[in-house]
């Protein structure tokens, strides 16, 4: 009896350990990307699309092959050292053939949220300035700076929500309504900095309950100040705000069964960057968060999850030139 109990105990403990410490499987799906900053999975086909930002293009990855879908986006630069060239940023599918692309290649007030009817796999690539693409801007007003660097794009079913990086006193998430083929107007919607007192909304996704989950990057020179905030997309009300202990959340995505995953770039010390699981629960009276590191990654920038729970992450990587990759992470 003693032996059985001891064996059972060891077995249970081993099972618990494997549950918590399961080694994720990380595979490289595509290499040779330059500052990839956005990733989305096409409904229906399951093809992975990547914003190959510094190359000024959006690509489709099919069986490991990189295929141009939209090319010739303008390129700007981000950062004071290290400095990264950036073009297209956030990606989100509106439906199987309609892709929204957040721009970062123009100065603030000139950057565009574009919405494309994309060609089928193997078709000719579009030009970024294709005539039939919607191109929406948020210009400056008397009191507000123009918006730009549209890093995160999320589609709720009736609107696109886009994180902006222009007005550093407000930290806007902007909204473009979508009705049939009509997209817009594109307007400032949620002043995240006023609601959280932390800078820079960057990552955004739609939670299973329909709320917006937003990663507030905070200051890149300050580790550990990243927030996870939930908003009601109907009125922009803040539902919950969590200090995550993460530094610079660049991507958020829900896996099947509601598991929330986040990528942390960790500017101040990129060796701390990686893929994290976040369990964030809240009611009107209390909230609770647990953050668990799944694996370290070299400057992760965006995340998407397919229907099978495979996680796709873009990383800038280290080294000169095209050191960017699309990684597939499974066995979570």
């Amino acid at each position, binding site marked *: 009896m003693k032996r059985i109990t001891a064996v059972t105990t060891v077995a249970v403990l081993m099972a618990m350990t494997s549950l918590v410490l399961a080694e994720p499987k990380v595979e490289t799906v595509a290499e040779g990307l330059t500052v990839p900053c956005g990733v989305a999975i096409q409904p229906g086909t399951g093809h992975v699309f990547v914003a190959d930002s510094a190359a000024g293009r959006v690509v489709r990855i099919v069986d490991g092959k990189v295929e141009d879908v939209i090319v010739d986006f303008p390129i700007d630069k981000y950062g004071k050292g*290290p400095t990264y060239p950036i073009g297209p940023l956030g990606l989100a599918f509106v439906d199987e053939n309609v892709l929204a692309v957040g721009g970062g290649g123009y100065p603030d007030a000139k950057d565009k949220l574009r919405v494309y009817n994309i060609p089928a796999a193997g078709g000719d690539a579009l030009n970024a300035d294709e005539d039939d693409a919607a191109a929406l801007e948020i210009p400056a007003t008397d009191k507000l700076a123009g918006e730009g660097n549209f890093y995160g794009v999320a589609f709720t079913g009736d609107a696109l929500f886009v994180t902006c990086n222009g007005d*550093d006193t407000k930290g806007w998430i902007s909204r473009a309504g979508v009705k049939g083929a009509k997209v817009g107007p594109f307007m400032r919607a949620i002043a995240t900095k006023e609601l959280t007192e*932390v*800078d820079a909304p960057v990552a955004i996704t739609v939670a299973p309950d329909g709320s917006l989950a937003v990663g507030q990057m905070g*200051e890149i020179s300050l580790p550990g100040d990243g927030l996870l905030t939930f908003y009601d997309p109907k009125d922009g009300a803040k539902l919950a705000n969590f200090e995550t202990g993460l530094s610079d959340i660049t991507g958020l995505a829900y896996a099947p069964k509601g598991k929330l995953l986040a990528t942390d770039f960790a500017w101040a010390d990129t060796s701390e960057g990686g893929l994290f699981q976040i369990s964030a629960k809240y009611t009107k009276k209390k909230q609770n968060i647990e953050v668990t590191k799944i694996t370290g990654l070299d400057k992760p920038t965006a995340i998407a999850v397919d229907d099978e729970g495979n996680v796709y992450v873009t990383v800038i990587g280290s080294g000169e030139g095209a050191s960017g990759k699309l990684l597939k992470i499974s066995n979570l």
Partner: protein
Amino acid sequence: MKKLTFRRLAFILVGLVAGILSVASIDSLSAREKQVVELPLGLDPFKVPADNPLTKAKIELGKQLYFDKRLSSDNTVSCASCHDPNKGWSNDAAFATGVDGQMGGRSAPTIINSAYFPLQFWDGRAKGLEGQALGPIANPIEMNLPIEKAIEKLNEIPGYKQQFKKVFRSEITADGIAKAIASFERTVLSGNAPYDKFKAGDESALSPEAKRGMDLFFNKAKCSACHKGHSFTDLAFHNIGVGYDKDKPDPGRFAVTNQEGDRGRFKTPPLRDIHTSPPYMHDGSVKTLKEVVEFYNKGGIKNAQLDEDMKPLKLTEQEVADLVTFMKEGLKSENYPHVDPPELP
């Protein structure tokens, strides 16, 4: 017994795993700590390291150490010499003066609301107040007393030996000195200003000039791009060009991180009771708040790492004056954190 053993093992395992993977390591104020420190109106709770909870006895010990000149090599300089409660918890000179009249190249940052800063010093080279506290004691141009010698000196003072026994249940240690001073510094808080009352609904708390200044602060003048939150600081580091009109600008945070983007970046100072601690900027080069606003109005001083929010603001003279009024009147605490030097053991 068997069940208990299994549960224990399971808890230990889960606890270990959670401990390894969980990010959190510091806690907000506990109920007991809230009884020790009263947060002024407008301030959020600050975090306290789990291994250094606030207690009355520890804060009192830290206060004595903070004001004690015996923590310098020639018994002439204390923490309070350069971070003087009567001078905005800073000093009124461009640079701090250490033992033998030695001077550094940076001004003495205020202690007010330093409880909120995860990284300390102008360049953020120290983690938390505990990481900062011993630096100036040992620094040859500040208090110039190696920590081992500081411990030796304190060991000759029975009152300190007794207090360390009571507070830390140990002999005098470097760790204990740092924890005590940090605990005292955490209590130096400024809030309860007209701005806080205005935010709480008292429309009359701010004068018309201060109200206009507040609107400029959060909008046209873009001050809140960095001076945000309850202490009016993002706790981070920025290059606004101060010192770039000199031959060899101070590298600032670059010296800590070696990242080019951090060259010339310095910590965003908190602004509560800012009128009490001139001169301003990391090098004490700007004498008045009006001159500070005028510096920003010009867009700072150009350099490769200049913060992208630093652009000419096109503020009128009246707008400059209103901004200054907001800072002088709107952020002036009704309960300035004045502390008298304690009786030393």
